[in-house]
């Protein structure tokens, strides 16, 4: 691991540790939600990271699709970032649920943000399944890139649809669906910003590692194939030329 990567990892670790202290000890409890609100400091950055990760996937996919910039690295980056994005999306959903239970009284709400995040999760789960259908970037690159871009563009449409749906269903009971916390004092907004920074560093570290892994495995895939063909040739088998 290069020194820069080690530094990134250390920075991520340090910021996450300090986040834990800030979030659990230093930041004051919320006037309305009490200590349950502390889950905001992990739920919000997880959700933010998911969107960032999928944005990176979309950009990398576009770069793959545009022939002039096409390169295996973009395909591998798209896949790596999406995988991390799915992990963060799942995390955001679970944390949102844990936050919602004491705050809303329910484990789930069908509001715009929660619903869109759930759809997002399934969209990219499908993307990850699609990635497993091709062993090399050449084989899977275009399909996956198109799927990633469609998914990315669909998300705001879904969000808009559900928001519209919500406004038609204004409940008489004031349910604090939005989980909006009033930022009071200095430590609450500071900790929130810190959490986003910490998670972003973590993302950068993880995606670099994941990309490294993908490159190694892709290289092995290609060399395995070459080796298998070379062995057949040496053994005297005729090299298959399309169709068995």
């Amino acid at each position, binding site marked *: 691991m290069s020194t820069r990567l080690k530094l990134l990892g250390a920075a991520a670790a340090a910021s996450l540790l300090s986040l*834990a202290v800030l*979030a*659990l000890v230093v930041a004051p*409890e919320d006037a309305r*939600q*009490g*200590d*349950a609100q*502390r*889950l905001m400091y*992990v*739920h919000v950055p*997880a959700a933010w990271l998911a969107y960032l990760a999928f944005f990176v996937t979309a950009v990398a996919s576009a770069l793959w699709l545009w022939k002039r910039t096409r390169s295996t690295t973009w395909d591998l980056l798209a896949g790596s970032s999406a995988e*991390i994005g799915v*992990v963060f999306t*799942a*995390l955001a959903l*679970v*944390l949102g649920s*844990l*936050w919602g*239970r*004491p705050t809303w009284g329910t484990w789930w709400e069908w509001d715009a943000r929660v619903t869109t995040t759930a759809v997002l999760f399934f969209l990219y789960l499908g993307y990850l399944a699609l990635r497993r259908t091709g062993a090399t970037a050449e084989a899977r690159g275009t399909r996956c890139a198109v799927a990633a871009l469609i998914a990315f563009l669909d998300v705001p449409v879904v969000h808009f649809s559900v928001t519209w749906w919500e406004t038609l269903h204004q409940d008489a009971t004031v349910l604090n669906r939005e989980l909006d916390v009033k930022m009071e004092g200095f430590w609450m907004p500071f900790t929130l910003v810190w959490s986003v920074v910490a998670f972003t560093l*973590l993302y950068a570290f*993880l995606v670099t*590692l*994941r990309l*490294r*892994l993908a490159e*190694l*495995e892709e290289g*092995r895939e290609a060399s395995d194939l070459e080796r298998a063909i070379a062995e057949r040739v040496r053994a005297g088998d005729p090299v298959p030329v399309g169709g068995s």
Partner: protein
Amino acid sequence: MDENWGYVVAGYAVTVATLSAYGAWLWQRLRRARRGVGD
């Protein structure tokens, strides 16, 4: 508001567990890939 600490602890524990598990899995796969061992 003490009864809500359970949720907070659960949430932070899930976060640490998930990220550690993913990190560990990555690390394992990287080591195997570097050594050139088949899956």
